[in-house]
């Protein structure tokens, strides 16, 4: 297990990253790179450590991640349900298609001020924003996945008397799972971004707000520490999702060559 995990770690890739940070440190220290507010990586590291020990970073990160995951989970449930309805019930598709096209081509960022105005500076507002961001990829991938089910599989279902809800549950949804998971991964990434925007624009809490206030109070080390935190948590969230999915939907993902 640990050996398999070790083999998956891209050592050369990580070395490149380390080299980049060393170069950055060097360029800032020697003064070749001269910006008034560009800290050296070592400074960022110390600032980060201080933020962690003071409890400020964990609190902010916790707030951001909670809102992201809550909105995204809600989006997954709604997206899969609606997507299933749209893919399988013709009238739902016909009636909703125009509205969906209009809504999803609206840049999601434009929705943030609307949410702030309607819901105020609340966590609910953040959750709604994360939900709105994530629901489109989940919905559209669910529709695409269900549409891509091979017709032979449906015939097999008819021949073996797997019909109605059982057909959906045993044939169509499992066949569409790799698509739905792709939608969930896209949705997770987008919700995290949109939550940050929402926190920057409005809500006085979370990583987005901390970033803005660090920038305004001229604390570049703190700002960069938060940036690094956000990017790491994006990676960790995605890895968690991928890991969880490959356990829960082992067969589906293995069949789709994801393992």
């Amino acid at each position: 297990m640990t050996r398999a995990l070790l083999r998956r770690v891209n050592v050369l890739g990580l070395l490149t990253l380390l080299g980049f940070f060393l170069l950055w440190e060097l360029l800032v220290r020697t003064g070749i790179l001269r910006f008034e507010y560009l800290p050296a990586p070592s400074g960022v590291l110390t600032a980060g450590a201080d933020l962690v020990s003071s409890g400020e970073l964990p609190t902010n990160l916790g707030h951001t991640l909670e809102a992201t995951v809550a909105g995204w989970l809600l989006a997954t449930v709604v997206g899969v349900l609606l997507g299933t309805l749209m893919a399988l019930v013709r009238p739902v598709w016909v009636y909703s298609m125009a509205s969906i096209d209009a809504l999803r081509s609206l840049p999601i960022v434009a929705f943030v001020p609307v949410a702030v105005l309607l819901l105020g500076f609340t966590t609910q507002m953040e959750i709604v924003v994360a939900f709105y961001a994530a629901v489109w990829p989940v919905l559209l991938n669910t529709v695409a996945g269900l549409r891509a089910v091979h017709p032979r599989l449906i015939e097999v279902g008819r021949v073996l008397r797997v019909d109605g809800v059982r057909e959906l549950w045993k044939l169509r949804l499992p066949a569409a799972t790799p698509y739905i998971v792709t939608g969930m991964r896209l949705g997770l990434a987008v919700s995290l971004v949109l939550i940050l925007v929402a926190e920057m624009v409005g809500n006085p809490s979370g990583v987005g707000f901390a970033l803005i206030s660090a920038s305004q109070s001229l604390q570049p080390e703190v700002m960069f520490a938060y940036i690094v935190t956000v990017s790491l948590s994006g990676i960790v969230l995605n890895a968690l999702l991928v890991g969880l999915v490959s356990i829960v939907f082992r067969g589906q993902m293995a069949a789709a060559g994801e393992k």
Partner: protein
Amino acid sequence: MAAMSTVQKSGVAALECQDLRVTLVGAAGAVDILRGVDLAVQPGEFVSILGPSGSGKTTLLRVLGGLQSIAGGEARCNGTAVSGPPDGVVTVFQDYSNSLLPWRSVRRNVALGIESNCSKQECRERVEAALAMVNLQASADEYPWRLSGGMQQRVQIARALAMRPSVLLMDEPFGALDAMTKASLQDQLQRVQEATGTTVVFVTHDVEEAVYLSDRVVVLAGKPASVGLSLDVDLGRPRDQITTKERPDYLQLRHQVYAALGHEVPR
């Protein structure tokens, strides 16, 4: 009327078509694929359907399996008109890779048709029995896409057998397999049919396979196609890949089928 008389002679046919007409809508509009097809398959009979490619063999099988609607005439299963897959009739498709559920193990693929209406215990027993019939117990917990083509097709056959069908409809089931695998699966199918007494309708484009396996060979001919030849195969059972195929009457039947398919016989 000829078909009627055979039915009356031998009771209710397992499957029966009368003056069947099937129209498929293609890019060039509606085309009659089958017209005036009369066919009766008796319970326990093994009937092969042969014909040039595109002659409508698969279409005929889909009609019998309740997967294709008809434009005229009648299709009946045990005396009742076919609308949707009839009870006790299971189709095995040629493209096993699309027909198996890649996310389910072999065992769970085989259980697919029975898991909802059997007790856990009965389901397990029937799955084991079906796997044993096609000799797949050793791969029961593997994913089907990790298996060879022949093994995958055996999974599909086991899944059909687990349903305990009275009629098995097989659409070129061994068409995509190599000669060795094909021969061994033919013999396995013979044994299974002997043990279960299942009625089999078997679509193939392989003349030797049809004669070797069947009690009767039906050749589709014409465009739109109808039954051009219906030939009883009295070769006795069990049959053997070597000795049966050396018998003069086997060669004679093979000759007749090739001729019915339009091959010129050199003099």
